[in-house]
């Protein structure tokens, strides 16, 4: 595929269209088609989309051009479907863009999506409205691909809300049970709050830049003259878009919907709440890195919010007993990690972690799914245990994923988490915009400031170093907690003796092969996935060829994050740039080991230990168990107050406007009528008197006129 197709690369359209077709077929005719056909239509659509994705990425790879100084750049492939909304200066087309960043995302989404589709064929086998489930799942894939491949913010927004609706439909899939429907509604509304901020951010961007097209915006924010226009709105627009991302990727303010979203079927949680939807926020910030890096205060807030969420969610995960909730809070925590990376400017690390997290978290969810499937929808870990022998494949794959997420070396989690922690401690945001507001132009700080920084001597960015340290420490603590609660979950489910009641214990069975194959594939990916980003202190000693492959992701995404990299100083502390990285690696390995050991100690060696810790912890335990009372707080703060406002305004509407004003005038006219009624009393003399009064008044008028004038 030569560059000929660079302009109208229609495969992008096909990637997006395939799941849509699957959704339409299943949606309209699903109920009449036999079960097998429904499976094949759904998985087939996903497979086609995956195939097209591979073809497109291959085309992109072939599109490589090597610049004179050895810089590889893969450019981008675009496809414009049709003109969506043109109005005045707004020209929004349905257009798709494939560049290295979205290539990675497309592969993750379609790949993991395909595996999950195959898995859910087995998982949902006995559910009678399976066709509806697959229709929603395909629709979700369509929306996610729109989000990932969108060329302008509008198409991303279509995907953004589409994904929100599909998660609403999928979480509330078993709508018969009101509690699950409520979870779906909560997810949708919290996402909608995020979208509200997203829209406002978009307005700001359009107001100043005049366009939403990423290519044009990137172009605009990199050339000196136009960057000055974006500088002032970088903070407000960035913050608003970040708030939108917190809604979608479940960060501090708007994460409340994710734990409840476990009400949906497990493959849904795997797909949506592990691999694809929740990563949308991270992807968007990476996509618009050139806007976010303009303002260091913005980057600092993102980093801190990410770190806080990571730590905060990890603490809650410690005490959860429902296996899916543990994984849910773990997802929130890992996403916190990614936002931390993005906040620190380590975009490549964030995408790397996003990819590895997709693999092992999807695996964890699917593993949990097959456990639940085996134990007939029993989700409470306290009733599980000793499944090692009963469900060997699930156990093995679950173990691999747990090791990966804990950050044990040689597994993918270690590499990506290490890169993030190293980025947290080593990156520093150079562009001090405070003084630069409108005063200096882009060349000034690209020419003067950055070289000074690259030259080694540290710029006066001291006061922002604290942010790095805070984020790093939170990161380390979260890593420890992650290792601990993941192995706690592992030991409680697979080790010890089975605490399930007799009836379920009797027929615990291993899941059918259609469910196990995806598990195995994902396990393999969780293991292999890490080797695209081997730590630098190893790769520096490698020859040219293997070094490229071991740092594949970094090289692959270098061009996309070119602008943001210009703003970062790498390896600020320590002489050789990678000395620090080795230090961080060692620390994180130690931390992971400690976590695993503690978990082993508490849940395998002396099972009664957690109970004792619990009463001693007492109040702290309750606080964690009730999730810091955040849900109740939101409920009273927002939901109750809005309803109260509603009642008050309804009263106001009925009694003040309708009652007083409208009703009032009607009342007055009626009474005025009453007064006149007395005139016609029927008494002759009264009439005569009125006539007399009339004449007198007339005389007055005439005489008055005469005398007056």
């Amino acid at each position, binding site marked *: 595929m030569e560059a000929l197709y660079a302009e109208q690369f229609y495969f992008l359209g096909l990637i997006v269209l395939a799941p849509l077709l699957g959704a339409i077929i299943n949606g309209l005719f699903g109920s009449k088609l036999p079960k097998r056909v429904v499976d094949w239509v759904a998985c087939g659509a996903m497979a086609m989309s995956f195939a097209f994705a591979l073809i497109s990425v291959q085309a992109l790879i072939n599109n490589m051009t090597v610049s004179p100084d050895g810089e590889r750049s893969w450019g981008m492939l675009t496809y414009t479907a049709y003109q969506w909304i043109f109005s005045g200066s707004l020209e929004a087309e349905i257009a798709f863009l494939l560049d290295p960043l979205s290539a990675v995302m497309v592969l993750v989404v379609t790949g993991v999506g395909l595996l999950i589709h195959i898995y859910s064929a087995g998982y949902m086998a006995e559910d009678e409205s399976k066709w509806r489930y697959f229709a929603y799942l395909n629709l979700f894939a369509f929306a996610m691909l729109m989000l990932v491949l969108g060329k302008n913010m509008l198409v991303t927004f279509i995907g953004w809300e589409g994904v929100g609706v599909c998660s609403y439909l999928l979480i509330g899939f078993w709508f018969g049970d009101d509690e699950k429907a409520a979870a779906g509604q909560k997810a949708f509304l919290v996402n909608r709050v995020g979208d509200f901020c997203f829209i406002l951010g978009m307005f700001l961007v359009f107001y100043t830049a005049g366009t939403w097209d990423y290519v044009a915006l990137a172009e605009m924010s990199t050339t000196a003259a136009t960057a000055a226009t974006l500088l002032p709105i970088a903070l407000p627009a960035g913050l608003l878009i970040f708030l939108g991302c917190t809604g979608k990727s479940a960060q501090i303010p708007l994460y409340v919907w994710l734990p409840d979203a476990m009400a949906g079927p497990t493959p849904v949680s795997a797909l949506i709440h592990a691999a694809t939807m929740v990563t949308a926020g991270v992807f968007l910030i990476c996509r618009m890195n050139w806007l976010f890096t303009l303002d260091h205060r913005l980057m600092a807030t993102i980093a801190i919010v990410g770190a806080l969420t990571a730590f905060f969610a990890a603490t809650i995960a410690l005490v959860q007993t429902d296996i899916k909730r543990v994984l849910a809070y773990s997802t929130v925590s890992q996403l916190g990690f990614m936002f931390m990376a993005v906040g620190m400017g380590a975009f490549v690390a964030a995408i790397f972690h996003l990819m590895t997290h997709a693999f092992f978290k999807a695996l964890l969810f699917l593993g949990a799914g097959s456990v639940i499937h085996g134990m007939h929808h029993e989700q409470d870990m306290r009733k599980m245990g000793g499944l090692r022998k009963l469900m060997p494949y699930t156990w093995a794959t679950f173990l691999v994923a747990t090791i990966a997420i804990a950050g044990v070396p040689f597994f993918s989690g270690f590499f990506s988490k290490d890169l993030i922690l190293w980025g947290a401690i080593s990156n520093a945001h150079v562009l001090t915009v405070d003084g630069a507001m409108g005063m200096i132009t882009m060349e000034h700080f690209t020419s003067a400031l950055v070289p000074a920084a690259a030259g080694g001597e540290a710029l006066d960015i001291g006061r922002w170093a604290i942010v790095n340290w805070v984020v790093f420490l939170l990161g380390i603590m979260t890593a420890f907690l992650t290792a601990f609660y993941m192995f706690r979950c592992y030991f409680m489910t697979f080790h010890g003796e089975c605490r399930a009641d007799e009836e379920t214990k009797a027929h615990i069975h291993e899941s059918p092969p259609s469910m196990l194959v995806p598990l195995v594939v994902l396990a393999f990916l969780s293991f292999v996935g890490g080797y695209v980003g081997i730590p630098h202190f190893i790769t520096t000693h490698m020859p040219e060829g293997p070094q490229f492959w071991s740092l594949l992701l970094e090289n692959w995404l270098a061009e996309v994050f070119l602008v943001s990299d210009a703003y970062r100083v790498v390896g600020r502390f320590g002489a050789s740039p990678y000395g620090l990285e080795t230090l961080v690696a060692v620390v994180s390995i130690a931390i992971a080991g400690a976590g695993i050991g503690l978990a082993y100690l508490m849940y395998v060696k002396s099972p009664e230990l957690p109970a004792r810790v619990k009463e001693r912890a007492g109040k702290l335990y309750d606080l964690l168990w009730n999730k810091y009372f955040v849900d109740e707080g939101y409920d009273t703060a927002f939901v109750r107050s809005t309803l109260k406002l509603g009642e008050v305004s309804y009263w106001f509407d009925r009694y003040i406007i309708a009652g007083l004003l409208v009703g009032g005038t009607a009342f007055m006219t009626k009474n005025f009528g009453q007064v006149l009624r007395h005139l016609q009393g029927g*008494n002759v*003399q*009264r009439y*005569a*008197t009125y006539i*007399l*009064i009339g*004449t*007198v008044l007339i*005389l*007055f008028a005439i*005489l008055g006129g005469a005398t007056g004038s």
Partner: protein
Amino acid sequence: MGVEPLFFWIFAIGAIVTSLSVVVVRNPLYCALALVVDFFFFAGLYVLLSAHFLAVVQVLVYGGAIMVLFLFIIMLLNLRGDELGQMRFQLHTALAITAGVVLFFIAGGAILSATAPMDGEPPVEGTLVVQDDGSEVRVQEVRTSIPGLYLALDEQTLEEKYLEQIASWERGTSRPSDGKYPRFNPERTFEVPPSMQFDPEAASVVPGRSGLYGTFQPISALLVNRFVVPFELTALLLLAAIIGAVIIAKRRVT
């Protein structure tokens, strides 16, 4: 002349008092009697205005005929003023009284302004007339804004002016009636019919007062000459009234 004002005030106050009593007194019988007395006072006033014939007719028609009718009805229905207690205060009675009083003041104002001498013009001194008993009387011929209206005239000048008027009729140069009788062609001369030929000296109507104005003779002449149509119509009206009254009041024998 000096006596006349006194009589006027007596009759005027008498008339007002009796008419008030007609309205105020509860018992209809006393009202009727008050009304009779009131008619007599009116008759007196007519005499002062030298409308001798009408004074008599007033007494005859009103006093005699109409009041008798009222008394007859009151007797027939033996009304005893049973509506004694009902004269409680009603809004519209208050309204009526105030409106009436206001109307009276308006009328009074209008009258005073109309009959006041034309402002700026001193009252024209009347011609000096020697009464037959030798006292001169200055006739105030005060002209008002209404042409041809004299404010105050004593008997003597009244007669002279009336005779002049009759004379003018004879001469055909009847006083410009200022359109009073538009239908009459002013140029057409109007010869006085023989019946109206008076012999001033022979017409001594009132013993000791010779005067033609207001007496029966000229009025009857006018009635049968110029106002003969209304005269006959009144006759017709009276006939209709009599028959009507009879039919309405007849007891239905059903």
